[in-house]
Each structure stands twice: as C-alpha cells, then as structure tokens.
C-alpha cells in the first residue's frame, strides 16, 4: 500500500484557476460592452464548455455562469453579460485542464 494521505494543495490546479480568474477579472472592457462583444465572449465560452463536454467533465459553475451571461444579455446588460461569459470561459478552460491533467494523475491516488 503506497498511497499517502497528503492534503497539500494541488499547486498546478491552483495556478490555472488563479490565472483564469485574473484573466476574467482583469479583462473588464474600458468602454461599455456591445452585443457583439457579448456574442464573441459567449461563443468562446460555449466552445470551451463543449470541449469540456467531450471530455465528460463540465462544471456546474460554468453552466451557471453561461446562464447568467445569457440572462444579462436578454436585458441588454452587456457589461455583465460579457463578464459572466468570460468567467464561464475561464471555468470551462479550468475544467478542460483538470480533465487533461487527470488523464495520468489519477493513478497517484490509487490504492495498491
């Protein structure tokens, strides 16, 4: 039995999440966002989330952010819509990173 119960934070995961959050938070447009901005941001998020879906690893928080983006866009609040879409994209990318890095890493946790 070689499994060790180490609860050290997962640094790779932490890094990607932090970067993703910075990206979403730092990317607030200076001017008011347009519907086109929203559509572009939403398409990027949606495509990342579809990729996460192919990897069978979507997050509920991504779905929630996508829904929030849509809802904000419906009321023409494009600043909010773009922000939520970017958050969704960041989350979806983090989930893709998670799925890819776990491809081999899951074995570290195995009881043997």
């Amino acid at each position, binding site marked *: 039995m070689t499994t060790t119960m180490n609860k050290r*934070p*997962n640094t790779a995961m932490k890094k990607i999440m*932090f970067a993703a959050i910075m990206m979403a*938070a730092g990317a607030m447009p200076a001017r008011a966002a347009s519907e086109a901005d929203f559509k572009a941001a939403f398409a990027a998020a949606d495509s990342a989330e579809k990729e996460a879906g192919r990897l069978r*690893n979507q997050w509920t*928080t991504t779905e929630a952010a996508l829904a929030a983006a849509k809802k904000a866009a419906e009321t023409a609040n494009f600043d909010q819509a773009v922000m939520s879409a970017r958050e969704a994209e960041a989350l979806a990318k983090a989930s893709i990173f998670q799925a890819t890095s776990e491809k081999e890493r899951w074995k570290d*946790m195995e009881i043997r």
Partner: protein
Amino acid sequence: MRARFALSLVVTALALGAVTAAATAADRPDPAADAKAFRDFFVKKFPKVKFEDFVNGPYSMNEDMRRQWEDKEQFPPYEFALEAGKEMFGTPFKNGKSYADCFANGGIGVRQTYPYFDEQEGKVVTLELALNKCRETNGEAPYSYVKDEMASLTAYMAYTSRGKPFDIKIPNDPRALEAYEKGKEYFYTRRGQLNFSCASCHVQNPGERIRAEILAPAIGILNAMPIYRSEWSGMGTISRRFTTCNSQIRGVPLEPQSDEYRDLEYYLSYVSNGLPISGPGARP
C-alpha cells in the same frame, strides 16, 4: 460576481492534492490484487470496524449516528418503498409476462450478481438497466433511473439478497477488463470545480464530516443501495447517488446509466466482493 471568484479561489485552495507516486505505466491490470489492496486499506485504516460492518457506511464509524440509525431501523423509512417494490415485482406486464421472467431464479436473491459484464453487448449491465430492459422487452415504458418505481423495485430485489455477498465476476474478455479499468479510472479521477474524486471523500476521508455529513467508506458503499436518504426525504438508486455526488463537487452529472457510471458501478462492486448485500438502506 466577485464573491463567486473569491469562492473559486477558496475552493481550489481546499482541493486535495495528490502525491507524486512512482511511475505506474508498466502496471498490468490485476482486479484481484486491486480488490485485496482495497480491502486491506480499509481494514488497516479502521481496525475497530468489523469487516461486514462497512456495508453500514457512516454508521460503522460514528456511535451517535449509529444509535439514531438503529432507532430508525426499528421501523425503517424504506419500508413503504420495499412493500411497493414487492407488489410491483409480482404484478404481470400487459403481455402476461413479469419481471421474474427476465432474471435468473425469477429475480429472487440475485442482486449480488449485478452488475455483470454482458459479452454479447460488450458492456456492463447494472440491475437498474436490466430492469428497464425487461420492461422494454415486454412492451412497457422504462422507468426513471433515479427514484420512485426503480428505487422500489431494486429495494425489493436487494432485500431478497440480504446477507448474500457481492459476487461480481470479470469474464475472460478484454472488454470486461477494460470496463473495470475505466471504472477504476473514473473512481480516482478528480472532477468538478471542487477538484474531488470519488476517492477524495470515500477513500481518504471516510468517517470525517464534510459539511454536515459523515462520509461513508467506499468499500461496501453500494451494498446498501437503494437507500432512503433523509436529505432526499425519499428513496434513491445507485444512479441517484452517483449523479448527486457529481453535483455536490460542482460537476455536471452524466446521464444515469451512461457507460462511465456503469463501469464505475462495476469497479466499485467488484472491490466490495465478499461483503453482504444490506439494501435497502437508510442514510442521513
């Protein structure tokens, strides 16, 4: 919005890390060795828990909860579902056939042999799946996999198998071994925003509280299914347990009875071989 970002950070910081273990690429699948290691791990981790008691999940690890459970078991909350299941099981379909016609030994005392690997289909077949297949073959609409009728039917079938040890076989078929390996991979793979695998909770931390709940050990966790969960105010199947576990770690659940879940059930049942069926069960 900011609050959610902050939460993401906290959550990620909380995520359990793994250790960089020795290279494992050369390992050959060996289910029997896995099962032994799995069993040894829990026995060693919980020396005071009698082996058969692992099927009682959190109640095997916490005295105060165990008393509440024993009290409830005097008249268990799954009783109504169990009776409904018995009646449903004995009621013929419109074409005159019944569930008994679809199973070995008329479906009585066979739950411990599910899931099995179907070499014709090349896939894992769970009890829930077999029940719906039986319905469809006989011209009846399938049931929802997560609760209600499916929970009642599996409750009754589990009940007729109480005390019989899990007897899951992996036939000499590379596809069966692959299904088992995929199930194992699913079990140990971190997912969801919380970055938890099944093992994060049910291997590393059984007996510990997460939020309000006391985590059950992975070994024997399916033996008690289906369960009446107070949190659900009702019954739930293995499908319900898998999908809600995924949502709890902020992962989007897969479709009930998707290949991943079937493989996971196959793996998790196999490594609990030898432990008796105790379902239907009651859980917080």
